[in-house]
């Protein structure tokens, strides 16, 4: 029996491509060329499944024009904003994604940002690389101690809870803000805040771990920043839209926020030019989940979901 045909829109980690090639008649993209909607429609002729990425917009027109042979779409991502689910529903086309497996890597990234920002790693790195380092001095590049500080987590989902566990191992006390209090077993000793005011006042280090979207757009604005303890550390490994960039840049200049660490930006891959002009920020290019382990796990989960649909089963990672 011929293997089913799988269109893979972008280059994937080697282990994932190897499995795709073993289990499918796989149409890969070794050059990692960007794919437009028209490219996808052309390449999907005769395909049983499409494995896409967030860079491709699968709008209603593209979904509607996909060949009838396509029985499932997998996306190599947790988010599915790039796929018109309404159009999929009309065609009765199931979509599978890759939830959960990014939590640990993203929490690690947030912890890296907390440590790097608090300990002025960007400045230290640049000093060493410049070749002009004059040697150890008692008052050189003094940061703030992470151990024993209060960490405020805005958004206590899977990533927030992973981060809480890591931070507690640094002796940090964890406070969190979310729409509702978690059950005690999931709370892990963290303190819930019903109000922004008490939460912000407690947050010597503030980590944003909430979803994006209209409800949280510019949640961290000038008014909320003013309620943080002076010199607070702010990190964001979630969504760029959570922050009013102008307000944060102003606070970093005034010292209201001492240090910041960012992995995500509003309008990325462009970013507010105010950030790279500052010494007291550490900047990463949205690579929160960029570990070999996580990307492999994402790929395998997407392939598991596609295989399940093609075999007539309901996958656990079906987008509903």
């Amino acid at each position, binding site marked *: 029996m011929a293997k089913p045909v799988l269109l893979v829109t972008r280059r994937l*980690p080697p282990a994932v491509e190897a499995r795709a090639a073993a289990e499918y008649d796989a149409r890969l993209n070794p050059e990692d060329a960007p794919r437009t909607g028209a490219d996808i429609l052309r390449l999907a002729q005769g395909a049983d499944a499409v494995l896409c990425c967030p860079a491709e917009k699968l709008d209603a027109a593209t979904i509607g024009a996909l060949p009838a042979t396509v029985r499932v779409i997998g996306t190599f991502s947790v988010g599915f904003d790039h796929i018109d689910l309404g159009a999929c529903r009309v065609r009765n086309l199931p979509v599978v994604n890759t939830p959960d497996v990014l939590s640990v890597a993203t929490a690690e990234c947030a912890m890296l940002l907390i440590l790097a920002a608090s300990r002025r790693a960007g400045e230290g790195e640049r000093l060493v690389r410049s070749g002009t380092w004059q040697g150890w001095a008692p008052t050189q590049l*003094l940061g703030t101690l992470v151990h024993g500080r209060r960490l405020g987590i805005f958004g206590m989902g899977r990533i927030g809870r992973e981060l809480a566990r890591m931070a507690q191992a640094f002796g940090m006390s964890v406070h969190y803000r979310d729409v509702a209090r978690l059950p005690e077993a999931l709370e892990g000793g963290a303190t819930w805040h019903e109000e922004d005011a008490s939460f912000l006042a407690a947050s010597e280090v503030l980590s944003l771990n909430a979803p994006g979207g209209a409800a949280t757009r510019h949640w961290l604005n000038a008014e909320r920043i003013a309620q943080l303890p002076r010199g607070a550390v702010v990190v964001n490994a979630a969504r760029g839209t959570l922050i009013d960039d102008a307000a944060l840049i102003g606070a970093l200049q005034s010292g209201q926020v001492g240090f910041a660490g960012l992995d995500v930006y509003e309008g990325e*891959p462009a*970013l507010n030019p105010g950030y790279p002009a500052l010494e007291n920020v550490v900047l990463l290019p949205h690579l929160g989940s960029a*570990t070999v*382990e996580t990307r492999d796990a994402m790929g395998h989960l997407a392939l598991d979901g596609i295989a399940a649909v093609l075999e007539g089963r309901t996958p656990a990672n079906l987008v509903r």
Partner: protein
Amino acid sequence: MAHDRPFRNRAGTVIMVLTTLEGPARMTPRLIVSRQMPAPVADRIRAEFDCPWPEGRDMDADEMLNQVRATRADALLITSHLKFGADVIARLPDHVRIAATCSVGFEHIDVAAARARGLKVTNTPDVLTDCTADLTLLLILGACRRAHEYDTIMRSGWRRGYGLGEMLGVQVAGKRIGIVGFGRIGQAVAQRARGFGMRILYTGPRRAPPAIEQGATFFADLREMLPQCDILTLHARGGPATADLMNADTFALLPRGAVFVNASRGGLVDEEALIAALQSGHLFAAGLDVYKNEPAFDLRLAALPNTFLLPHMGSATIETRTAMGMRALDNIAAVLGGGKPIDPLWT
């Protein structure tokens, strides 16, 4: 500038205030501080000591000795920048009773000469433990997650997204970490590593009791531990016994793709072998806070993309540097008050 004020006037003022408050019998102890100190430490020096520059001033040995003679100082507060060798110790006047170094390490001090002279010498252990352990995890995360390359991308403008298999780092969670030297800092690193679900392996002169081990696996022989380490971190003492502990042979024993970090002593590492292992890809990355030659470290390390480099910042937090200064002052106060030092270099 405040630093250049004539010290006699300033010192005189302090003495007058204190004599009024505490009576003429109590002499304010005289102190020379040979390096800049954080503000809260300077405040305490101002309040408790007679010192020409309570903020500290960067002095070489000659200037320090001149100041000591001019003020008839009872005590010295030094840091590792000042070579406190036998020649300097021999020139110290008898009225100096204690030299407190604001550091854990004391490679800059000739301990034998100080002992022979009857000088008390103290350091500042304990207070750096959490700070250094935090920084060690920063080195681990920064090296594994390619923080240097990522920050460089951002500062040069970014402007393009990365493919799903591109610029990938190594996950820290769930890995096996080998800790060389399971003292206070090594144990604090283990504690943090547990928060990432890491398996803890360690080696040192002796096995720790179970309450401290907390499930960590002891190896009597470093060479037996190395093949099992995804991440290796050094927290051993410096000195001839551990010089070049990590060399071509020992790096080769690590599995391919391992990550190496060092926040303890630069002398533990043969940097030639380290650079070769980073260039060949035998090591995925290295995170370093200390170097064989500081500050004139091997610039080839800075030319490598897979290094995460910090300028000896293990204790560089306001809280810790303040605590170190305070601890040094505690030692000075104890000795000048006729008691025993809290952190003597020898007993």
